[in-house]
């Protein structure tokens, strides 16, 4: 409500003010507009008038001009003047017409007289012109007199009148314009004044209707604040001010009523306060009472706490009496607590010493008391006192160290009394000096001596307990009884403790003994362990058993060789029976053991075969030994010596011998039999022939058999030596195949590769292998005509590269039955059936072949189909040979020297190709063909292979393609047998140095010769010639240099004398 009313008031004031200023603005604009219109009008008229005036003056000037020209014409009569007059006249006419037109719009009458005169003048002018032209001056004069001059004057006047008239009008208009300009200045001033008046009016209105009531209300509020009673008349205001006044009125009324209420309240509170004060007094009284009670309670609590502490101390004391095992701990704890609970100040325990090692002090001297070892001398003091009995101070607490000695003077009395009388004795005495220093201002001390007992019983006290309290203190009720009880407890506990200590001592002694025993036992165990280890590491089963058969010990091997069933604690014979049963062995070994045990035989030896079915058998030599053992007494030792291996070797040997004997006896029997028949009987010649050929055949067989047998024996004994040299498998195979070609109607068909098949192997052994395989192939393909022999290159199983040569010999004969295949390479194995019975053989061939191939690092295999044929093949790793083409070929078996030479030539940018055997080098040259000749050969004469350097040189000299290769003999030469060498000559024989080799090599490569040029490290022609000729080389010429000789060799054909 109030907000809306206030809003409307604001709006009304705003709208009112805006309306007033709008009215003023409009009024001002209207006045301004009117003045502007007037002014514009006047200025237009003024322009008009000025223009007309100008036109009038121009027309006058033209008129006068025309008149002038006419007069001039008239005066002079010149034609040109006439023309000018005429044109001036035309100008004037034109202007006059304009003037007429200007005046025609208004005031036309003003110009009328002029127009009438002008008409006359026109006529006159024409006449005058004609008269002048005619020269009729007279007429002219006449005319001028009559009409002309007057008319001109009239016209001039008329023109002047018109001009004046025009000027007046212009002035008039100018005055009006000036007035208007003044008006323009006056109007804004008036408007400003009006606005000021309006604002004044507005302010007055506002003050009257709003500000004064607000001020009134404000002062009313102030008055109300001050507590005055205010009545506001709201009636004259019907608007917000009115409601404001009403509100103030209501508020004032409210405040008045509230004030009255407060006054009432104040009165009431005063009453309450009085009441509260009364209550407070009461409470204070109660509080005092409570405080009193609390004090009482606190005192009670204090008593209780003290009691509790006492009890706690007693408790601790009692725990100390039983809880500690060490005597020292016990005394310290128990007596400390005892002093505390009984309220004493000092305590001392003295007992007879059980320790005889301590001797009582003799001649104890006072000056020793001054020593700085209080315990030591306190000890001494007591020894002095109870000297004869060897008493010992076990515990002392609370006495000054020096004062302990001061007891010496007198207290022997009460202590001895207490001990002698066996009851407590109490003495009161003055405090000694040192004691007074320690215990302050006390004068007297009360000593109580209690007899104490050791474990030996209560009949005789073993010492005394001294408790001292300083000063006279009244003892509380019952405290003395309590203290006495505690002391009794202590004495009882001390007895128990001493007894226990004795027991502990004994127990410790026992423990020590036990430890010794344990140690002894451990030593024994160690000994036994090491013995056991020794026994376990023996490779023979050992069983020690009692005479009754109980196993006392056995070693690890027993379990491994026989059965784990044999272990300590079991009966040997029973275990044997059990084992036999377990493996299903039918054996009386258990019984045999029993017999051996019963008979008590010593040193009995026996054989025992452990042959569990389905497991490998073991053979033992068993011997029984009687042993006298400290620990076990009379026992039996069974030793099982494993002789399985021996047995196996024996068995194999026997088998072999029996087989060999069978194999040998068969041909022998035939030979001997037939020979005997022939010796003893008369045999027909054809039969004799048959017998003899049989004998021959069998003898051959026997011989082959013996040869094979010896071969095999050698191989098996590992005595077969292989001399591996590079060789051409192709040549070798072809050679052997040629030997078998055509035998028994069999063609041996060879399929060989182009290149040489170089392998490193033993040629003789390979020949034997090939002989065996070829002979088998032919033997076991009776009636067939072909055996195939092929060499091919193949990859081994492990690698992809074709790195081995395989020789395969295939027949198309009987084939091998499946069941025979596994034993095929076994000794004396021959496939048995009637087809083969006629085929002779030792059954050793393939075994030998296999051993040899494997010995040569090869591999043998076969495949066969019964009735189709068999193929046996063996593979040997192929040997890659470097190409010697264009290289320096170094033939040197000493690796380091060879390396040196190689390095030297390589340093000179030569390619070097090094071999240690002539065979290899020759094979490499062969493989490389003729055009791949080396540049130079450096040859050592003694080489690793069978062929020597000379063989190599001969080959080179004989080969057409290699003949021109220069050769240097790098090694020193021995003179040929029978050559008489001079002493100085010996010194000249020395090998080339590497540098010399290099130089010579370069020189020889550079020189060109048709024949073989050979450099020898011999500066002697005779010796060089002799050497060469000895080795089958013809010399064409020799050139001797200071250190060497270069010989040219005569060319020979290949395969010349060797």
């Amino acid at each position, binding site marked *: 409500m109030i907000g809306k009313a206030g809003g409307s008031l604001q709006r009304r004031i705003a709208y009112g003010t805006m309306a007033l200023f709008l009215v003023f603005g409009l009024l001002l604009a209207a006045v301004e507009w009117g003045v502007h219109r007037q002014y514009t009008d006047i200025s237009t008229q003024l322009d008009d008038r000025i223009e007309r005036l100008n036109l009038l003056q121009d027309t006058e000037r033209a008129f006068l001009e025309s008149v002038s020209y006419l007069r001039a014409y008239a005066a002079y009569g010149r034609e040109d003047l006439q023309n000018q007059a005429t044109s001036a006249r035309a100008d004037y006419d034109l202007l006059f017409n304009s003037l007429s037109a200007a005046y025609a719009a208004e005031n036309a009458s003003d110009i009328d007289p002029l127009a009438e005169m002008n008409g006359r003048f026109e006529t006159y002018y024409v006449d005058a012109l004609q008269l002048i032209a005619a020269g009729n001056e007279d007429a002219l004069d006449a005319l001028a007199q009559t009409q002309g001059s007057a008319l001109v004057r009239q016209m001039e006047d008329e023109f002047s009148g018109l001009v004046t008239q025009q000027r007046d009008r212009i002035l008039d208009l100018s005055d009006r314009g000036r007035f208007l300009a003044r008006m323009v200045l006056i109007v804004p001033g008036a408007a400003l004044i009006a606005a000021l008046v309006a604002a004044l009016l507005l302010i007055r209105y506002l003050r009257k209707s709003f500000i004064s009531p607000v001020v009134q209300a404000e002062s009313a509020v102030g008055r109300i604040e001050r507590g005055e009673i205010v009545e506001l008349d709201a009636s004259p205001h019907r608007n917000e001010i009115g409601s404001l006044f009403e509100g103030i009125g209501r508020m004032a009324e409210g405040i008045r009523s509230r004030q009255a209420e407060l006054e009432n309240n104040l009165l009431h509170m005063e009453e309450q306060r009085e009441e509260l004060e009364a209550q407070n007094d009461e409470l204070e009284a109660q509080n005092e009472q409570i405080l009193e009670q609390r004090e009482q309670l606190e005192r009670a609590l204090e008593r209780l706490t003290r009691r509790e502490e006492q009890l706690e101390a007693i408790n601790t004391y009692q725990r100390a009496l039983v809880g500690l095992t060490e005597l020292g701990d016990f005394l310290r704890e128990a007596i400390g607590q005892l002093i505390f609970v009984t309220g004493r100040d000092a305590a001392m325990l003295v007992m007879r010493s059980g320790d005889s090692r301590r001797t009582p002090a003799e001649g104890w001297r006072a000056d020793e008391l001054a020593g700085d070892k209080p315990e030591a001398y306190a000890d001494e003091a007591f020894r002095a006192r109870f000297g004869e009995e060897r008493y010992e101070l076990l515990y002392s607490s609370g006495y000054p160290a020096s004062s302990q000695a001061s007891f010496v003077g007198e207290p022997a009395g009460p202590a001895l009394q207490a001990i002698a009388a066996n009851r407590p004795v109490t003495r009161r005495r003055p405090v000694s000096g040192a004691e007074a220093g320690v215990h302050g201002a006390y004068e007297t001390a009360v000593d109580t001596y209690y007899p104490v007992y050791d474990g030996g019983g209560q009949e005789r006290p073993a010492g005394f307990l001294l408790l001292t309290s300083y000063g006279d203190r009244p003892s509380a009720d019952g405290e003395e009884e309590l203290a006495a009880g505690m002391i009794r407890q202590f004495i009882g506990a001390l007895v128990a403790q001493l007894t226990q200590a004795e027991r502990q001592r004994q127990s410790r002694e026992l423990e020590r003994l036990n430890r010794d025993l344990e140690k002894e036992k451990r030593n024994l165990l160690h000994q036994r362990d090491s013995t056991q280890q020794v026994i376990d590491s023996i490779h023979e089963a050992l069983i020690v058993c009692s005479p009754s058969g109980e196993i006392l010990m056995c070693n690890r091997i027993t379990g491994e060789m026989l059965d784990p069933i044999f272990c300590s604690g079991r009966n040997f014979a029973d275990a044997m029976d059990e084992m036999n049963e377990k493996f299903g062995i039918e054996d009386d070994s258990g019984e045999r053991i029993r017999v051996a045990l019963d008979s008590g035989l010593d040193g009995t030896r026996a054989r025992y075969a452990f042959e569990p079915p389905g497991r490998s058998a073991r053979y033992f030599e068993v011997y029984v030994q009687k042993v006298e053992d400290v620990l076990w007494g009379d026992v039996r030792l069974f030793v099982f010596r494993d002789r399985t291996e021996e047995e196996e070797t024996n068995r194999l040997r026997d088998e072999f011998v*029996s087989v060999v004997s*069978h194999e040998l006896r068969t041909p022998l*029997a035939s030979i001997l*039999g037939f020979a005997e*028949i022939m010796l003893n*009987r008369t045999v027909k010649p054809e039969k004799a022939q048959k017998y003899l050929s*049989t004998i021959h055949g069998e003898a051959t067989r026997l011989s082959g058999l013996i040869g094979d047998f010896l071969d095999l024996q050698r191989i098996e004994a590992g005595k077969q030596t292989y001399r591996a040299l590079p060789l051409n498998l192709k040549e070798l195979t072809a050679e052997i195949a040629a030997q078998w070609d055509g035998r028994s109607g069999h063609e041996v068909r060879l399929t060989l590769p182009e290149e040489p098949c170089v392998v490193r192997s033993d040629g003789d052994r390979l020949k034997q292998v090939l002989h065996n395989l070829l002979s088998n192939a032919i033997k076991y393909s009776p009636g067939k005509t072909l055996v195939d022999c092929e060499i091919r290159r193949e990859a081994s199983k492990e690698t992809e590269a074709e790195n081995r040569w395989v020789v395969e010999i295939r027949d198309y004969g009987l084939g091998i039955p499946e069941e025979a295949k596994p034993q095929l390479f076994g000794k004396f194995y021959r496939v048995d059936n*009637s087809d083969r019975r006629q085929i002779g053989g030792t059954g050793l061939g393939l075994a030998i072949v296999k051993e040899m191939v494997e010995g040569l690092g090869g591999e043998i295999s076969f495949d066969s189909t019964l009735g189709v044929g068999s193929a046996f093949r063996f593979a040997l790793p192929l040997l890659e040979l470097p190409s010697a083409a264009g290289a320096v070929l170094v033939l040197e078996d000493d690796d380091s020297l060879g390396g040196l030479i190689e390095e030297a030539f390589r340093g000179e940018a030569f390619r070097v190709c090094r071999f240690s055997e002539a065979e290899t080098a020759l094979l490499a040259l062969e493989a490389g063909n003729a055009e791949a000749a080396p540049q130079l050969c450096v040859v050592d004469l003694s080489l690793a292979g069978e062929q020597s350097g000379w063989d190599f040189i001969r080959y080179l000299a004989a080969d057409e393609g290699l003949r021109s290769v220069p050769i240097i003999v790098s090694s020193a030469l021995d003179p040929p047998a029978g050559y008489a060498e001079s002493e100085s000559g010996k010194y000249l024989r020395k090998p080339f140095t590497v540098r010399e080799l290099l130089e010579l090599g370069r020189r020889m490569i550079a020189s060109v010769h048709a024949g073989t040029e050979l450099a020898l490290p011999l500066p002697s022609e005779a010796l060089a010639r002799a050497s060469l000729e000895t080795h089958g080389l013809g010399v064409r010429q020799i050139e001797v240099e200071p250190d060497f000789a270069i010989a040219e060799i005569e060319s020979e054909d290949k395969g010349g004398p060797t």
Partner: protein
Amino acid sequence: MGNKKILIAEDEMVLRFLLTETLEDEGFDIDEAEDGRLAIDSLRYGEYDLVILDYMMPEATGVEVCRWLRAEGGINAQKPVILLTAKAEEKDREEARQAGVSIFVSKPFSPAELTEIVHDLTGEGTP
């Protein structure tokens, strides 16, 4: 008939030939067998006065053949058996004796001695 009949079982052709030559000259009729099985076959179907067995033969050893002969040999069951052996071991001989071998002849043998033994066993006097 007249001639005594002998079976020779021997896998080695040469020995068979030697035995045949030795005994045929003495007037015996000879049958040959190349192995143990063939020997048993011959013994099953023919009657012999003497059997000479090689110890080592394929299919069945001489001892096995002898054992069979003694057990199931029929008419030949009680005939004397000579075992030719290259083995001179006592153990083998014992086994062979148990099997019923009458006499052992070890290789190499003398044809004359063998002839003598054969004569003894067949009851023919030496010619």
